[in-house]
């Protein structure tokens, strides 16, 4: 089985490890990610103004092109997923805007593509029980804190991913891998997002609270679905150390990297060198690499 795949800009640069591990794992799980030809930037944010149709053109074009190739489009980056899924929802529901946008991009897309996150593919198409059977190296009760962030979950009416206040899909995924999911209150809170550019101290404080909350609940690693969250939570730990002398660092991994470990992929291919906080000592201690 093949799935059309929209990687997005970040997965070609800062988050290559996210992209590569996802592609490699899918092959082991019996499906292939077929990269959408001629893809562009997703638009990076879903417009807040309801009349800002210009911002919807890139995702609309991506969806229209994908529909020419297949019925399901999958993404990894939580922000791309949010923008594309919400645009799809809007094109489904709002006939007037759909017509305007179609005229502008000179295509005829009706909003009838299914947009699924890679985690949803694993749950709905593969199934977590099957995934569990295919795991070669169970994660040995690794205490992993699933960090959803906000983009996968909100707004619920448009994303429909999971319960927005208390999601569990990520936990089910981690359990299938043999890890012990750690529940922590900050798992659905904002990572600081683009504040890391303009007011970095705000983002650093967000990251500090998220990471320390996870560690208080016993987390050994934080698991992420988003390159921007990962940037804020992982790369910013050196800045947190400057403000909080008592802070202890904690590895932050993409969920596909942990999936790769569990599927028995060669650690050399998991892109750990792109992680700011080195996860290898932890994985060694757990007997996983």
């Amino acid at each position, binding site marked *: 089985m093949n799935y059309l795949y929209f990687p997005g800009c970040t997965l070609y640069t800062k988050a290559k490890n996210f992209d590569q591990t996802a592609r490699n794992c899918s092959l082991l799980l019996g499906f292939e990610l077929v990269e959408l030809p001629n893809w562009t930037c997703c638009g990076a944010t879903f417009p807040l103004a309801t009349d800002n149709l210009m911002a919807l053109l890139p995702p609309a074009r991506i969806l229209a092109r994908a529909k020419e190739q297949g019925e399901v489009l999958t993404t990894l980056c939580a922000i791309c997923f949010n923008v594309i899924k919400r645009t799809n929802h809007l094109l489904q529901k709002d006939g007037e805007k759909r017509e305007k946008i179609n005229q502008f991009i000179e295509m005829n897309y009706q909003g009838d593509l299914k947009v699924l996150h890679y985690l949803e593919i694993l749950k709905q198409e593969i199934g977590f029980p099957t995934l569990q059977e295919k795991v070669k190296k169970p994660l040995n009760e690794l205490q992993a804190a699933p960090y959803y962030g906000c983009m996968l979950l909100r707004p619920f009416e448009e994303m429909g991913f999971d319960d*927005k206040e208390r999601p569990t899909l990520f936990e089910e995924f981690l359990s299938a891998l043999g890890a012990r999911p750690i529940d922590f209150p900050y798992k659905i809170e904002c990572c600081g997002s683009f504040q890391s550019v303009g007011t970095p101290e705000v983002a650093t404080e967000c990251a500090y609270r998220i990471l320390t909350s996870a560690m208080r609940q016993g987390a050994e690693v934080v698991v992420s679905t988003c390159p921007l969250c990962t940037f804020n939570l992982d790369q910013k730990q050196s800045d947190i150390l400057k403000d909080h002398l008592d802070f202890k660092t904690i590895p932050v991994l993409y969920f596909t990297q942990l999936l790769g470990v569990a599927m028995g992929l060669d650690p050399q291919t998991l892109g750990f060198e792109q992680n700011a906080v080195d996860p290898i000592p932890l994985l060694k201690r757990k007997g996983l690499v």
Partner: protein
Amino acid sequence: MGGEQKIEMGASENGFIKRAMVIGGGIAGITASIDIGNAGYEVLLVERLPSIGGHMLQLSETFPTLDCAQCTLTPKTVETGQHPRIRLHTYSEVVRVAGRAGNFSVQIRKKAAYVDWEKCTGCGLCQQKCPSKYPSEFDRRMGLGKAIYTLSPQAVPNKPVINPDHCRYFLEKKCRVCEKICPVGAINYQQEDRLIEEKVGAIVVATGFDLMPVERFGEYGYGEIPDVIDGLSFERLNSASGPTNGEIRRPSDGRIPKEVVFIQCSGSRDPERYMPYCSRVCCMYTAKHARLYKHKVHDGQVYIFYMDIRSTGKGYEEFIQQTMEEGILYLRGRVSRIFREGEKMVVWGVDTLTGKKVEVLADLVVLATAIVPHQETKTLAQILGIHSDSYGFLTEAERKLKPVETNQEGIYLAGCVQGPKDIADTVAHANAAASKVQALFATH
């Protein structure tokens, strides 16, 4: 008891039956019953719980006077119970209604109490000795009740019922302690529901309200944080007859909370997610709660998150002003999230007057949850052939000029079944419904 007495059925020459049925034994139903009874007409008061009093019996004190609710209500319940023209059908439900004004045929299900109320003297021995304890609904699941119970020590009628879902005899076919101990042999495990038929000429519907369950609020922990409670629960904590004997102790560990957060409009005035309407009593009872708490816990700090203060009743605004002067912190803004962190609850809100985010580490959070109709109210509306609105409240005949009449002649509304009301308005509404019944009877 009223039930013991033979009541003459009043009917005029043309067969118009001058006898009323009141459905619901809260303060609305009690008020309407006493009024109609005092006017010389017979009343059947049907209550689905074992005794009358309704939600008001659960309250500790009432605004704006801070009177003890039980002290003001108990004389009324006793008067109702002893009234020569009021017959109580408690632990009963209306099943079928046919006919029209002046001649309604009513079928009532008298639920099996498993206690012969004719024999029972209300001595209470069975309740003392019953070994089966479970969270009491009357105490909002914070205290323990028995499988054989009355709602309160002042219950009217003071006759117990057995809850078969918790009774050891019904569950395991053993125990029978109540049967052994009862000095008059009133326990009857074989009792069954009974259907009775009555004829009445007018009906007053006063079935009251429910609260939106705390479990609805995902952002506040889906009801799984034990120290996030609703307003009625706080009433029980503050009530001398409640599970803590009136000491403010939080449910999780029984400690006295020092930082208490109240959140008004929880589920009210929120068209996107919950109820678009104002529940009308929350501003006042939250202020009352805050004051009662401060009167008991002098070094405690209270935070009230509000949207607006709506204090339009007589003496209400003065009550709010007094509350503010007692050192209670009013923060205008909503709370976005509550979660547990150790023994505290982290409350994230905003103070829109300063534009600042607020974080409170609270020991207890009280949600002023929305007043909603009972789920069964819609079914009752169908039985009666009257209208209910999209929320489930029963609809009056005209919004301004006919606030107690319905689209059916002879059927009237009283209290919160028609929409949220405080006690004073409920009593006035019930007085009005009763006067409509009297006028109907007087003209036939």
